[in-house]
Structures are given as structure tokens and as C-alpha cells.
């Protein structure tokens, strides 16, 4: 079958093409990527499933409105490089989004096929096109407009900062990115594990930005090494974009939380991903030795899934997810949940930890939990879990990872009091421009929304870039 001579009926008869993956029993012993990627044949086959709607509703589900029908058509025709180019008109990090977007809640949820069949695997196809372009060495740098003689500082090198920098440099502005850590990429490098998003891919994207002329300054903590006001007044930046993410781990505030063996997900994942402690002692940073131990991760989001699957790979005998609600309420991507199940992760649902218990050496030995049942829906529309009387029990564990979300790091707020923040310490912006209450200062990503998604952070970075351009040049970016 080829893209020209295929009927809708024939398209609909093709089953959704699964992406080849490492077998669960193999992958729990390594940190290599779980999914292996489509072959060109599989990609074309999957692309043929798209019925090329007159009104491609899938696009409405994508926060950056990728021209999904068009790029899929190009894949079906075998024009993989053309497809990659088409995607990049709207999304600068397709290899990353194709891997980590919660597609089932976005583009694929809207896909017309979802109702009667399975949706087109838009994420997988996006990933394929981007990988194909990169792996065949065909990434072309976009053209950069002539210099505007304006300078913009971007604080934070997560998806929000990177996408903002990308658009601004292409519009001809000089862009310097300031990053607190010694490595670039934000959550993409310190949070999301190698087995879900190989760091090589993040590196390649950043390399592209360097080649376009973006200057990256690592080891620079805004608020400490340099303040927003200094950037504007002393370093003469014309505008500043703040994309510092949501990086202040919440703890549960229950007894025993400072026992040895209790971690925040941020610490556990940072040690393993950023500091590569899974390669201890070749890398100097140690992490709790999970081998043969029982590890419980508290929470139900992507971060929790990443932490628990990491513990499993580090050799945990039992790796539990302990969650207050039921599986249906878990915010994690469906795919990650399925992967976790196949990898032997044990789900302890409708359970609420009330106290960590330790031995006389202060090492964690267990967690006291209460069983819960679902009651009335709460503000978020999810049914509120309520404890069942006298249901207390102790789950024996050696390590606990707390993954109940992040607040906002207060550094910028403390050192730049004229930027308005909300009660939750997130930065308040005009959502159309991402402008903060401070002149020429913009913000976007998790620092504005609280923990959200890669694609939303990217979208915010792009909105801000367009607004900054307009402000500095007095003309629209389009």
C-alpha cells in the first residue's frame, strides 16, 4: 500500500503499530532506553493509519499546534526529513516531546480515530522523524536573522528556557542562558531518567543551540551569583526570561521523615541521573544501595514512576508505589504506568503513610500506613480519599522516596521583590505575553504553572520569546 492509493477503509484496517521495546526482564537490569524506536517500515505503516482529516482535530490537542496531519502525510510518503522539518516549524524539541509528552491527554486524545479505533501514534511518529533526522546526520541549522543588537538573558536551561532561547536567537537577538547546575537541560537531565530520555538527545539539541550562537553559562545561580537587577542594569540585558522550574521538593510532614534512607524524589533522581551514581564508584557520588532492598515511592505522578523504576533498576527486591488514591487518579502517563507494571513494580493503592519507623541507628525500617477509600470529589474533581478506621499496618521498607510534588524555589522572589508571586510562590504573568509585573522581565514553565509538562513549558518559552521580540523591536515576531 502506498500513500497515494489507499482508501480510508484500508487505512482503518491497519492496527496501531507498537514501538519495539526492550523486554521487561531485560530492561530492569539496565539504564538503556526502554523503547527502541520505529523502523522506517513501521513508521510508514503507522502513518498510513492517519485518515488525513479535513479538520485535523488532533492539532487542537497539541499545546504548540504542530501540523500533525501534514507531517504524518510526509512520513507516509517516505519523506522523513520533510516530516522532521515540518514538525520543527512548531516544536523545537521533537525528539524529546515525542518521548515524554502525555499524548493520551493531548494530541492522541483528540485524534478522530480514538473514538472507534486506537488513535494514530502521533508521539511515536514525531519521535521517529526527529530521530531519523538526527541519526542520519541531517539536522540543518535554521537561519538566523541579522543582529538586532539586543541582548536577552534566559535564566534556567529547562525546556522553557531552551525554547525561548531558540526563538530569540533566530530572531537575531543575542542570547545568554544562565544555569545553576553544572549541566544544561533542567529536569530533562536531572529528573527524567536515561531509560526514558537518553541524555545524548538532550545534548544534541543543546549543541544545536550553541551552534546558532546561544551562549550558555553553567554554575550561575540567579539570585546568588547574579541577580535579575544586575542582569538588567550592570550587564545591560534588554530583557530577562525566567524559566527556573519548580525546584523545591515537598515533604509529607510526618514523623520520621529525616530518618536515614528517606529521600525526596529530586535528590534520588539527581544523584542517579545528574551525578550518575548508578555508575558508582566510577562516578564519585553515592546513592542508597537498593540491591535486595525494599523501596517504597510515595506519589502517583511521572516523577514517582521514574523513581520507582530507577530503584528497580538499581536492584530493589520489592519496589512499591504507595498512593493515596486509585490507579485511575494517577497523574502519570499511561504508558509509564504500563511499563512500570510490566517491570514488576508493586502498586499499594489507597494507602496513606502516617509515620516512618526506624531502628536505633536511625535507619528506616518501615512505614506505617492507613488504608483509604474514595469519598466525594474534591476541588480537582478527583474523588477524595478518606481513611478507613483501624486499618493501620506497617509496610517493611529500607528506603523511601517522597514524590508528592514541588513548590517554587524562593531565590528569585527573595532577591527580586518587585516580581509579583502568587500565594504558592509561583510567578504571576500575563498568560498572553508571559510578562511579569517587572518591566522587561518575563517568566514561563513550571515556575509559573507549578509542576506541569515539557510541552507546556516549551510553549510558554515561545510565547515569551515572541512577546520579548515585540517589546524590544516594536514589531510582531510573525
Amino acid at each position: 500500500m502506498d500513500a497515494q492509493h489507499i482508501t480510508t477503509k484500508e487505512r482503518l484496517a491497519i492496527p496501531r503499530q507498537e514501538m519495539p521495546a526492550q523486554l521487561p526482564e531485560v530492561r530492569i537490569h539496565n539504564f538503556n532506553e526502554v523503547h527502541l524506536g520505529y523502523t522506517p517500515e513501521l513508521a510508514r505503516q503507522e502513518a498510513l493509519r492517519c485518515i488525513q482529516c479535513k479538520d485535523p482535530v488532533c492539532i487542537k490537542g497539541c499545546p504548540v499546534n504542530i501540523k500533525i496531519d501534514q507531517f504524518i502525510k510526509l512520513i507516509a510518503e517516505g519523506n522523513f526529513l520533510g516530516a522532521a522539518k515540518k514538525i520543527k516549524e512548531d516544536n523545537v524539541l521533537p525528539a524529546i516531546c515525542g518521548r515524554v509528552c502525555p499524548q493520551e491527554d493531548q494530541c492522541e486524545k483528540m485524534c478522530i480515530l480514538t473514538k472507534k479505533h486506537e488513535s494514530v501514534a502521533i508521539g511515536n511518529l514525531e519521535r521517529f522523524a526527529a530521530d531519523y533526522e538526527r541519526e542520519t546526520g541531517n539536522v540543518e541549522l535554521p537561519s538566523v536573522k541579522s543582529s538586532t543588537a539586543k541582548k536577552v538573558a534566559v535564566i534556567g536551561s529547562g525546556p522553557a528556557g531552551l525554547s525561548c532561547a531558540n526563538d530569540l536567537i533566530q530572531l537575531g537577538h543575542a542570547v545568554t542562558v544562565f544555569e545553576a547546575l553544572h549541566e544544561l537541560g533542567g529536569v530533562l537531565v536531572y529528573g527524567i531518567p536515561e531509560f526514558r530520555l537518553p541524555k545524548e538527545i538532550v545534548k544534541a539539541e543543546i549543541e544545536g543551540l550553541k551552534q546558532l550562537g546561544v551562549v550558555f553559562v553553567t554554575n550561575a545561580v540567579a539570585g546568588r551569583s547574579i541577580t535579575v537587577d544586575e542582569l538588567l542594569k550592570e550587564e545591560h540585558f534588554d530583557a530577562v526570561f525566567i524559566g527556573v522550574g519548580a525546584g523545591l521538593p515537598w515533604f509529607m510532614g510526618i514523623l520520621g521523615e529525616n530518618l536515614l534512607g528517606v529521600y525526596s524524589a529530586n535528590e534520588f533522581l539527581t544523584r542517579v541521573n545528574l551525578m550518575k551514581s548508578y555508575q558508582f564508584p566510577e562516578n564519585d557520588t553515592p546513592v542508597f544501595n537498593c540491591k535486595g532492598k525494599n523501596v517504597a515511592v510515595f506519589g502517583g505522578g511521572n516523577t514517582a514512576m521514574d523513581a520507582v523504576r530507577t530503584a528497580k533498576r538499581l536492584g530493589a527486591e520489592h519496589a512499591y508505589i504507595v498512593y493515596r488514591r486509585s490507579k485511575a487518579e494517577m497523574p502519570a502517563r499511561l504508558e509509564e504506568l504500563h511499563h512500570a507494571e510490566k517491570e514488576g513494580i508493586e502498586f499499594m493503592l489507597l494507602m496513606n503513610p502516617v509515620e516512618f519507623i526506624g531502628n536505633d541507628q536511625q535507619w528506616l525500617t518501615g512505614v506505617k500506613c492507613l488504608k483509604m477509600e474514595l469519598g466525594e470529589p474534591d476541588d480537582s474533581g478527583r474523588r477524595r480519599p478518606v481513611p478507613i478506621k483501624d486499618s493501620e499496618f506497617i509496610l517493611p521498607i529500607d528506603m523511601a522516596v517522597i514524590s508528592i510534588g514541588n513548590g517554587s524555589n524562593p531565590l528569585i522572589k527573595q532577591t527580586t521583590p518587585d516580581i509579583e508571586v502568587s500565594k504558592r510562590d509561583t510567578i504571576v504573568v500575563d498568560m498572553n505575553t508571559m510578562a511579569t509585573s517587572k518591566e522587561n522581565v518575563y517568566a514561563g514553565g513550571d515556575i509559573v504553572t507549578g509542576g506541569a509538562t515539557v510541552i507546556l513549558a516549551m510553549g510558554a518559552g515561545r510565547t515569551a520569546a515572541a512577546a520579548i521580540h515585540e517589546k524590544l523591536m516594536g514589531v510582531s515576531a510573525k
Partner: protein
Amino acid sequence: MFTPYRTIQQVSIITYEIEEPMYQIVSAQFLAENIKKIEIEAPRIAKKRKAGQFVMIRVGETGERIPLTIAGSDPEKGTITIIVQGMGKSTRELNRKEAGDTIHDIVGPLGTPSHIENFGTAVSIGGGVGTAIAYPTAVALKEAGNNVITINGARSKDLVILEKEMAAVSDEAYITTDDGSYGFHGFVTQKLQELIDSGKKIDLVLAIGPIPMMRAVAEVTRPYNIKTVVSLNPIMVDGTGMCGGCRVTVNNETKFACVDGPEFDAHQVDFKNLMDRNKLYLPEEKHSTDAFAHKCHMHKQA
């Protein structure tokens, strides 16, 4: 300018001098056995840092991030000074560096600066390498007009560091050694008790050193209600408030030492919890240290 990436590059109107993101060591010498003073080029940090702040250092590409107090700086020259005691692998590796060598990453200044004002009479107590951490704050206290008394404690005479420097900022300077080989024979706490007993009015005590020492100082001053500040040394990873690994219990509340501290009210600190938490990686630390010692040994033999 910060130390940015790559080699000379034109970015429209500005030219950045771009080199590898490495930090040059300007000078390095041992102050005592195993304690080295290292001066590093880090102009931005030199300009910004205040007493009580620290940097996170990653010695090499595969190194861990370790916190070290900024002992001093020269904003003109663009350098900061750290004083490092060889404890395990990372600090020993750092202590082998000489002038001209480089360090992979330095970030700072981090932490909340010491609260400095004219308290009246301030006693600054340093135990071992803690003296290096106490020194910059002693300087700041002096500059703020305090009557500064320093007690500089060490196990024995050859481990005393910064004797001249401490004396220079002190109205009264004492040395104590555990074995009596120099100065007052006994612990810093005994000297402090002596001062209190002599009827001297003390308005602030700053104590920095091993955890048992800081805890003992807190117990000495508690009955007299003397405001006492300690600088805590939990295990850190990022040093920016992102991981919570450095959490300490102060006044029954959890605090992140890297952003809320490292200085806290000694009378409210849960020292036992700090001591326990610092044991988290003992087996791994021992492994790294032994492997490093072995490597150095082989190196010498070769």
C-alpha cells in the same frame, strides 16, 4: 564576566572571551598536615560573596559536588580562597592540586550570609578546619565594631591553623590544644567556660567545628542564654534548595541547610539527627577513599 563555554565567539554586539568552563588555581599551600589553603580564580564569586557563604565544587568530570566555605576573597584580583581538610576522596583529590591546576566546576556564593551586627562582645570558636569557616565571620564581626574574642582549637600544635590571621582580627585570641602541646591545655568549651566564669559579658558565640564540639558549646552557653550560632555541615548535593538532602531539624522544623542556613541557632539544632544523617554513605565513602589511597600509593611506586 562569567566563564562561558567554547572558544572566542562573536555574538552580535558583545564579544565573550570564551574558554573551557574550568577554574584556575592561583596558589595552593598546606597550612597544616592535610589542611590546604587554595586560591582560585572566580571573579564573580569574589565580588559577591559575604561572610558565612560557601561554594559547591566539583573537582573533576566524574566528581561529586562538595560544599566548602569561602574563607576569603580578593575582589580586585578576582580570586576566592578555600581551606580544605582532606577527609575522603573528593577533599584529598582537591588537596593534591597545585597552582596552575584547574577545577572543573565552582558555583556560588551559596547559603544565607552570616547575620552581622554590632552585638557587643562576640566569641568566635573554631575547631580544627572549622577555624577556616569561622574566620571570615570573625573578620566581618570585627568590621562591624564588635569586641572579638577568638578561641582556636586543635588536637595538637601542628594542627593549629590561621593563628596569625585570627589574632589579627581579635581583641583577645586564645589557642587550645587537646594534648596541651600549645596554648591552653583542653577543649574549646573549657576555655569558653573560663571566660564566662570570669564574669565577662558575652553577647554572641559563634561555634564552628566537628558536630560534637558544636553541640558541647551549645550546652555551655544554654544555661546563660547566650545567643549561640553554629554552621551546620550536612551532606549536600546541589546546594540550591532543589533536593532536600541537606535537611536538618531546627526547633523541630525541617530546614534546608543550603538555603535556610548553613548558620542556625545552636540551642534549637537537633545535633543527633545531623550526626546520624551524616553517616548515610559511610560504606561508600570508605570504598572511594580506600580506592583513592590505593591509586595514590600505586602512583608513588610507579
